[in-house]
């Protein structure tokens, strides 16, 4: 892949889940971007966007994390490439009203403005790739056919729908739509822990849809949201199923490898 307009710089927003549980996804993203000639920066003070805490109803506590995020990212204006559609949606849509929670009256306007500015730079990974990179070279070692799971926040809050499928199919990867694709996989942040029974029932429905897509040729599941993937993968593992799951960045990295090479 090549960037359209020579070298660009982006800041990576890795997310806590990728940082702690699947750092290889972050590495894949870095490799994909760097290989296309993009300069990747990683503001290393970043932690977590606070979505788990926010969705559980702990607004004040989430606001603390939101302000930390904003202060880490506010000084520059290079794009912030987010490795999760859901976390991107959190920053873009919730932060402007969230950051002012618990802030002294005189500072609310500046926090809100800073949050809006930061939100304005946030772009979900596949969205950024779709807009700025063009595929080059014959793609190779990636799975030929995958089922796509679109996270709910990416689908509805970010309103992004086409990009993950678009960037993957540009590399010749066939995308199988899941039955009931617009149904939530049941992850829902800490909902997966506090309401594990419903969460699991939804996960099993999604896994059944994956198996059905498998009969149509899908060799695994791909998504732009790691939370959903960990939930589904963890469930499949417990049930003794072994469908591979991939973050979009991982598939793109594979697709950009020269045939047979590492």
């Amino acid at each position, binding site marked *: 892949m090549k960037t359209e307009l020579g070298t660009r710089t982006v800041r990576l927003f890795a997310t*806590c889940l990728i940082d*702690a549980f699947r750092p290889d996804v972050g590495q894949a993203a870095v490799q994909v971007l760097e290989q296309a000639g993009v300069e990747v920066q990683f503001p290393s003070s970043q932690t977590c966007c606070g979505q788990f805490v926010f969705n559980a109803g702990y607004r004040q506590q989430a606001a603390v994390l939101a302000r930390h995020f904003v202060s880490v990212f506010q000084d520059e204006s290079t794009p912030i490439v987010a490795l999760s559609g859901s976390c991107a949606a959190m920053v873009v849509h919730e932060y402007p009203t969230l950051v002012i929670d618990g802030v002294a009256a005189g500072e609310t306007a500046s926090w809100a403005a800073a949050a809006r500015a930061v939100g304005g730079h946030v772009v979900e990974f596949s969205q950024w790739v779709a807009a700025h990179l063009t595929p080059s070279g014959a793609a190779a070692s990636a799975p030929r056919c995958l089922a796509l799971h679109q996270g709910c926040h990416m689908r509805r809050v970010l309103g992004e729908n086409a990009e993950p499928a678009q960037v993957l199919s540009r590399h010749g990867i066939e995308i199988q739509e899941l039955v009931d694709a617009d149904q939530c996989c049941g992850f829902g942040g800490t909902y997966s822990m506090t309401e594990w029974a419903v969460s699991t029932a939804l*996960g099993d429905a999604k896994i059944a849809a994956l198996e059905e897509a498998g009969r149509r040729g899908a060799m695994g599941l791909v998504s732009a949201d790691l939370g959903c993937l960990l939930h589904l993968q963890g469930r499949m593992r417990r049930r003794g199923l072994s469908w591979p799951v991939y973050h979009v960045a991982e598939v793109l990295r594979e697709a950009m490898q020269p045939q047979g090479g590492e």
Partner: protein
Amino acid sequence: MAGHLPADIRPWNVRRDNGLTNAIMRETLASGTRRFSEGKRQVFQGYESQEAARQAGVQAKRRAVAHLDELLERAQATIQAQGGTTHVAATAGEARAIVREIAQNAGVRLVVKSKSMLTEELELNKELAASGMRVIETDLGEYIIQLARETPSHILAPAAHKNRAQIRALFEVDAQQAHLPPPADDDARSLTQFARARLRQEFLAADMGITGGNFCVVETGTVALITNEGNADWVTSVPRLLVCVVGIEKLVETWEDLTHLIQQPAMNGIGQRLSSYTTLISGPRSQFGEGPEEFHVVFVDNGRRSLVGTPYEDVLSCIRCGACLNVCPVFRQVGGHAYGSVYSGPIGVVETPLLTDFEVGAELPSVACTVCHACGEACPMDIDLPGHILRLRQEKVRRHLTARSANWSYGMWSGAWATPAGYRRSLRLARLAQKIYLRRGWLRNAPGLAHGWFITRDMPKVADITFHEWWAQNRGTGAHD
């Protein structure tokens, strides 16, 4: 003032597990809600005028809620001028008493009803039965669950949790009591044929009809009823007495408002341009005409007014189309009964605690929503359902309705992760502590909040080298150049 809603007092996990283990219900709900949602998608295609009508309808509902008191006055005046009688009930108890008295004064013995969520909310049938009247639900699904002594599991498909064999068994007992031949078999058509004949007996004998109202038009004094079965037409045309029980939020000001809204329930709920029957009743029969001799409208508050002027005000715009239920992933899994409230699905999650000031359904915002936003996208009245659910979760935290241990966990979590050092320290700590839970490189359990995850799922372990650490080692300082 907060209202009262009937509640299923069994705990959530019991109600939920009843739903999760009812394969018939889940099957029926899944195919039904899928069909409705797909129908909705199709019916709007190439029908742009209805998108404009929808928007005008939203405005009409919002305006009405903003002028509720004035509209209520005017609606009463119009209905009275057209020969109807009006009543206003602030509470559920008042509403029950009003309807009971109307019936008692007229010496009513048999009441036929068309489907009304509000009368479920009021538990009106119980009240009338206690005064010695027979009350018959005439919507087929409602009739089935009345025979089974249950409550609706979906506002559009009340008996979605029953299968044909169960329904046939109920009808066989009923046939014996009514001296009718039982259904020939358990085919849906035979069962429906039986219900037709059976309920016809009741329609013809009834002294009083009770309906809800989908809309109530202030300027014309009209109650609009929308059904597919045609039972509302029996109820409005046959008994000599008609009582429409209408929530105050059903008011819209003008006839024109109605023209924008009238197609919305069917378009959004079941994917039809209009339901089979739209019945508009504006008064008692004129001298020779048809319709009831006496026409009553009972306007009910029961907690609704307490939402006016709050961030939740738009909830009063709900047209009970069911679109939010149809797309809700949790609803599809657990079914309507799990909510323990008359109102289920996303709107029930929001409305139940709100109407009762958290007396009923306080658990719902936390347990019955994955925050997937499908309901917000589906709602034709632009009600901010996902936003409200989050707001209610926050409200619960503020009101100390959440577990102390949870408060502690989330507090620790955000406190630690608000600084890079704290964040890294907690991950290092987790990496050390996880050792006892590892099996073949995967986490099999964890304590505290996270435990729920591991009841049904594994999790990759906290990585030996996190992304932060990898970056520091491989790109470190200077890699930016």
